[in-house]
């Protein structure tokens, strides 16, 4: 029996940037064949950016190929008022549980970490099932502040469907990726000629979900995995489609992604959540971009169980530095972190100003960690 042995998994990786560099030949040839520079393509996944930065891939992309990170950091696109809701709930004395990345994300005037320093009780959990477990161990209300894209929302749905304790509830800030790709594709000034879609979100939704997008926007979409080889192969395929003027969906991650996706997961997701319009931080109002609990789950919906009074924050002035933050432009793919006056100066991982510097999946945090600006790819 063949199987994915650790050896095989290791050998599918390009650990050595020098070897990855040899792959730039194909990308260079395709970029030259396309014949207009820069060719800009966008990925929408923090894990893709991590792999690109960590393995130094951007340094081996040809001049004239611009690989931009779009709104692919779920923590970063969690909107300020959503963070405010968590801050206010926690400040009201309600016990909160959330993913670790959320703690230092700035709200209008405070982060959850600020609230914690002022005495609020906030537990960091690895999984939503740990939050439900916390609720089982106590009689007091426990609210899970739920962030993340559909991959993560499925886990929240599964916990709600598995008979959680009555003192458990969810403050959903979950986001749904497909609608935001349409927004970014249609943004004025967008030069994006194709998308690299994140393999693991597509594991849930299936790659078929991108067919309508391709049809309507005439832009190719390639689903790619996360190993450096996966990403380079995905980019080669994407540039082929751009060169041929062929808007199509290609699946370069068949070991994890099928056309129809994980039907059982989709069924659980849509039984618990409904899509609704809402703001993504810094991007825009995204129709159907937010996932909120359906009416049937009202008893587990923190927004309906608690009175969350955001006006209690109005006594505080927002931090002035935040006015210079260009997170929104960075997440929309219009600017790169080195264009921000605060990047690496006032805004660093220990004292982040914007959400993109907080999360491990934020563009600014990743660029800061891996030596700031490895972009030899011909940014205009």
């Amino acid at each position, binding site marked *: 029996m063949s199987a*994915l042995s650790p050896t095989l998994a290791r050998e599918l990786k390009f650990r050595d940037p020098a070897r990855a560099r040899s792959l730039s030949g194909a990308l260079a040839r395709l970029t030259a064949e396309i014949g207009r520079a820069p060719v800009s393509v966008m990925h929408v996944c923090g894990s893709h950016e991590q792999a690109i930065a960590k393995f130094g891939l951007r340094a081996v992309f040809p001049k004239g190929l611009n690989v931009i990170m779009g709104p692919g950091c779920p923590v970063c696109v969690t909107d300020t008022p959503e963070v405010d809701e968590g801050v206010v709930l926690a400040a009201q004395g309600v016990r909160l549980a959330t*993913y670790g990345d959320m703690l230092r994300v700035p709200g209008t005037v405070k982060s959850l970490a600020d609230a914690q320093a002022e005495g609020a009780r906030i537990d960091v959990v690895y999984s939503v099932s740990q939050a439900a477990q916390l609720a089982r161990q106590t009689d007091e209300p426990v609210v899970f502040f739920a962030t993340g894209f559909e991959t993560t929302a499925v886990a929240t749905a599964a916990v709600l469907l598995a008979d959680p304790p009555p003192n458990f509830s969810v403050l959903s800030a979950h986001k749904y990726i497909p609608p935001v790709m349409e927004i970014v594709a249609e943004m004025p000034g967008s030069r994006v000629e194709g998308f690299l879609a994140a393999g693991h979100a597509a594991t849930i939704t299936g790659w078929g979900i991108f067919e309508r997008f391709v049809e309507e926007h005439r832009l190719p979409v390639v689903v790619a995995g996360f190993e450096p080889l996966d990403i380079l192969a995905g980019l080669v395929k994407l540039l082929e489609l751009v060169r041929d003027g062929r808007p199509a969906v290609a699946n370069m991650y068949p070991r994890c992604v099928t056309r129809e996706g*994980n039907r059982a997961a989709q069924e659980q997701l849509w039984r618990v959540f409904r899509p609704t319009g809402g703001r993504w931080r810094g991007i825009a109002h995204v129709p159907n971009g937010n996932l909120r609990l359906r009416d049937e789950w009202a008893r587990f919906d923190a927004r309906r169980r608690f009175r969350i009074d955001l006006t209690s924050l109005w006594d505080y002035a927002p931090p002035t530095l935040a006015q210079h933050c260009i997170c929104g432009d960075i997440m929309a793919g219009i600017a790169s972190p080195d264009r921000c006056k605060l990047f690496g100066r006032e805004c660093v991982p220990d004292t982040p100003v914007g959400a993109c510097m907080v999360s491990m999946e934020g563009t600014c945090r990743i660029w800061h960690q891996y030596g700031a600006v490895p972009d030899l790819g011909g940014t205009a």
Partner: protein
Amino acid sequence: MCLGVPGRVVDVDGSVATVDFFGVRRSVRLEVVDEPVAPGDYILNHVGFAIRRIPAEQIQETLALYESLLREAGDDMMAADVRGEIEGARSGRERA
């Protein structure tokens, strides 16, 4: 948050599996995965939930995909490089 991790199922107890992630064992819930999971299977884990059972034969499919890339790429350094990866992967699998 969006990166899933593959691991090998060691034991299944109802809706919870014990999974080995390159030497580290942890519990993974099975409500979301859309196929039956048994010891020896590989699953993709995301925040404590299995989101996919990875069929062994799809590893072959991935390798075939890279081979088709090679045909497109011709005989340059990239071809040599990917070929090396595939050969390495094959012998690695046979050893396992």
